């Protein structure tokens, strides 16, 4: 196993792209190629009609408001849930030991279901209501945030807290003085990242018909008005890129500075004002989230129906295809950015690559899937590629930021003695960043497993696809069975990905690979 090392393992997975491209080629049909060419050319010529721009502007506001409200509530709720699912906190409060692990187990269920699935389930319960989109973001996001927060708190050594306790401080002042400063930088960096995610999710929710700019994209795609579609994509894209830059600046400036604490004290006020503004604006745009929804009574399937569903569904097959989809997508997503930077490390190469990754990040996967269907038949390859595009963009950005923060001293040292750019990049940048890259990749693979639900629909493969079929035929027994299996799968995926992530991050791999 000597030859296996993190760098090689960051490069080799790129090979997964080959079978996927071959399959796309095999499924190629000419029917939509002229449409695809029109799609691509329209990207450079988006529609600029005033009427369209006005409606896109309204759509953008709806998406942003939904994203912001869902995000803000999820951060607050996630913070509280994070506190009560941390074992350190329970130790400080002298509570029963079982509480923290129990809370963690319970919280792993809401986040095991993708926000799109939540939205479709909530739709059945609440009907088409403004709250659906917000809740669909709030439910999984708050439990994701809770996990990150409690993980961070639990890295604190309980012994170090004794010193504060001996000064006679009560448990709450311990939490405020010892724990809050540890979580604030995390809240700023992770919270900012989640805001970006929330905006992407709100856009995808739109594509599934929940209003906002995503719906505009979906409608113009259906009516083959590609120029109009691109207007919406560019607008939301520019918005996301701007947000990325603002948040990046904010992170760099405040994350580790004492000002951060002061800023955090102000942010509830700022957040509250924007929150109220969002609700008012949504109401002006005819989306009232303060009206109580009409709850439909949920139809609970009988035991017999559930057993029938288990017998009739090809569960093993579906699970297997979901896993294969996850593995191939993860391979492409891990390998392509690493290979890209290795083969084309020049200054222009890097600028071009990071622009491509930026564009990839703004195109929602269901849309990529729909576009790919114009030239290829539905199936595994289309789903894998569609899911890869956005995630490559995200991994590419991670790699770039990682390299930037570690500095280019080694890279420059290699160049002083005539090492070629490619080799200098390989040794000066990739080698030292590859284990943290793989660690992040393990987390990304976990996200990809959840996301198979959304491309399953268009890609015609895996549990996601079957779930959409069962949902649209109101077969509640099947829906229940599939969601249970999906949850179990993603919960195991989460545990596995955490193990793999630590394997790379904590140098555990050295014991095995060297």
């Amino acid at each position, binding site marked *: 196993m000597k030859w296996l090392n993190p760098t090689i393992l960051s490069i080799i997975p790129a090979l997964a792209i080959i079978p996927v491209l071959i399959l796309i080629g095999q499924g190629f049909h000419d029917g939509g190629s002229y449409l695809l060419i029109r799609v691509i050319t329209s990207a450079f010529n988006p529609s600029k009609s005033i009427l369209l721009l006005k409606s896109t502007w309204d759509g953008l506001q709806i998406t942003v408001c939904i994203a912001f409200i869902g995000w803000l509530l999820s951060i607050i709720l996630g913070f509280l849930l994070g506190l009560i699912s941390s074992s350190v906190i329970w130790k400080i409060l002298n509570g029963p030991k079982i509480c923290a692990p129990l809370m963690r187990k319970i919280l792993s269920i809401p986040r095991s279901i993708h926000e799109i699935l939540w939205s479709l389930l909530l739709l059945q319960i609440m009907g088409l209501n403004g709250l659906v989109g917000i809740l669909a973001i709030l439910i999984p996001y708050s439990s994701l945030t809770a996990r990150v927060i409690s993980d961070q708190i639990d890295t604190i050594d309980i012994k170090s807290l004794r010193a504060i306790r001996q000064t006679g401080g009560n448990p709450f002042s311990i939490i405020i003085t010892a724990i809050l400063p540890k979580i604030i930088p995390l809240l700023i960096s992770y919270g900012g990242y989640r805001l970006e995610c929330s905006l992407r999710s709100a856009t995808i929710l739109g594509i599934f018909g929940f209003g906002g700019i995503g719906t505009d994209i979906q409608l113009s795609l259906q009516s083959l008005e590609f120029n109009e579609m691109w207007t919406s994509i560019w607008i939301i894209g520019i918005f996301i890129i701007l947000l990325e830059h603002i948040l990046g600046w904010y992170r760099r400036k405040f994350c580790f500075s004492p000002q951060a604490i002061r800023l955090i004290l102000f942010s509830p006020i700022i957040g509250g004002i924007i929150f109220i503004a969002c609700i008012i604006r949504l109401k002006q745009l005819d989306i009232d989230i303060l009206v109580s929804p009409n709850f439909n009574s949920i139809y609970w399937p009988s035991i017999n129906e559930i057993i029938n569903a288990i017998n009739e569904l090809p569960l093993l097959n579906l699970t297997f295809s979901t896993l294969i989809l996850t593995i191939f997508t993860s391979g492409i997503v891990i390998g392509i950015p690493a290979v890209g930077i290795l083969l084309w490390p020049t200054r222009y190469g890097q600028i071009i690559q990071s622009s491509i990754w930026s564009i990839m990040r703004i195109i929602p996967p269901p849309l990529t899937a729909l576009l790919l269907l114009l030239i290829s038949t539905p199936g595994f390859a289309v789903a894998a590629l569609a899911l890869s595009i956005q995630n490559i963009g995200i991994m590419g950005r991670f790699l770039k930021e990682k390299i930037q923060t570690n500095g280019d001293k080694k890279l420059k040292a*290699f160049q002083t003695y005539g090492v070629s750019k*490619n080799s200098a990049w390989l*040794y000066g940048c990739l080698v030292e960043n590859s284990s943290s890259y793989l660690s992040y990749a393990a987390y990304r693979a976990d996200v990809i497993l959840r996301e198979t639900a959304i491309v399953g629909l268009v890609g015609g493969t895996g549990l996601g696809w079957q779930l959409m079929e069962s949902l649209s035929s109101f077969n509640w027994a099947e829906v229940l069975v599939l969601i249970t299996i999906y949850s179990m799968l993603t919960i195991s995926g989460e545990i596995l990905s955490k193990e793999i992530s630590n394997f790379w991050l904590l140098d555990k791999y050295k014991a095995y690979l060297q």
Partner: protein
Amino acid sequence: MKVIHELSNIRLRGRKTNRLTNINLKIYSGEKIALLGKSGSGKSSLISIANGALYPDEGHVLFKGENIHRINQKKRQKIATIWQELLLIDELSSIQNVNCGALGKNNLIWAIRNLTGTLNPHFSSLCLLAAGLPAVYHNANIKLLSGGQRQRIAIARMLRQEAELLLADEPFSNLDPTLVKQTLNLLQSRTLNEKVSPPKTILVSLHRPDLIKSFDRIIGLREGKIIINKSVNEINELDINYLYS
């Protein structure tokens, strides 16, 4: 004697003051030069300018008569540097790190093979032995090695490069007295070894005036300026005291 490396009219600006001012230095082929000065006198900056890692604000650096920022890769391979912070790659073994010295001569495939550990380690082993690192450490995880051991890996990496000019930034700082002597002998080419030969021309920055007897010429830096440029025989205690006062 032929001039191999030349720094002329170099000025490097820092945040408030100049880090280097009016540096003029000719290095002749085969010379062994010691660069002395207090911490912060500009020794490391001068070395980074000399190997082309830093661009000076004024002036230029010529290697064999050509501007260092315009020479081709092949010529650059003739200039080796031992960095003060060593710049080893912690993720790789000793041998793999030493192989990095030959990255310039080889292509990307070779670089990838080095990562996978499938290259013939013979020559790199010789370099490590010449630098004084026993064979048991050749495949070690270098994160676990001591400062002195890591220093020897950096020296071996430089030997592996087979350069003509060596620029070394305090290469003895982590070594014990025996190893200092051994390394000095090696750099002076007094240790005879058929395969491993150090660069003929060397510029070494030092913290220890007691070592200067092994060199031909002494350059003294103070506040970014060259204030001493003499043959080692002409140096007296006053010069040294002035340099460190």
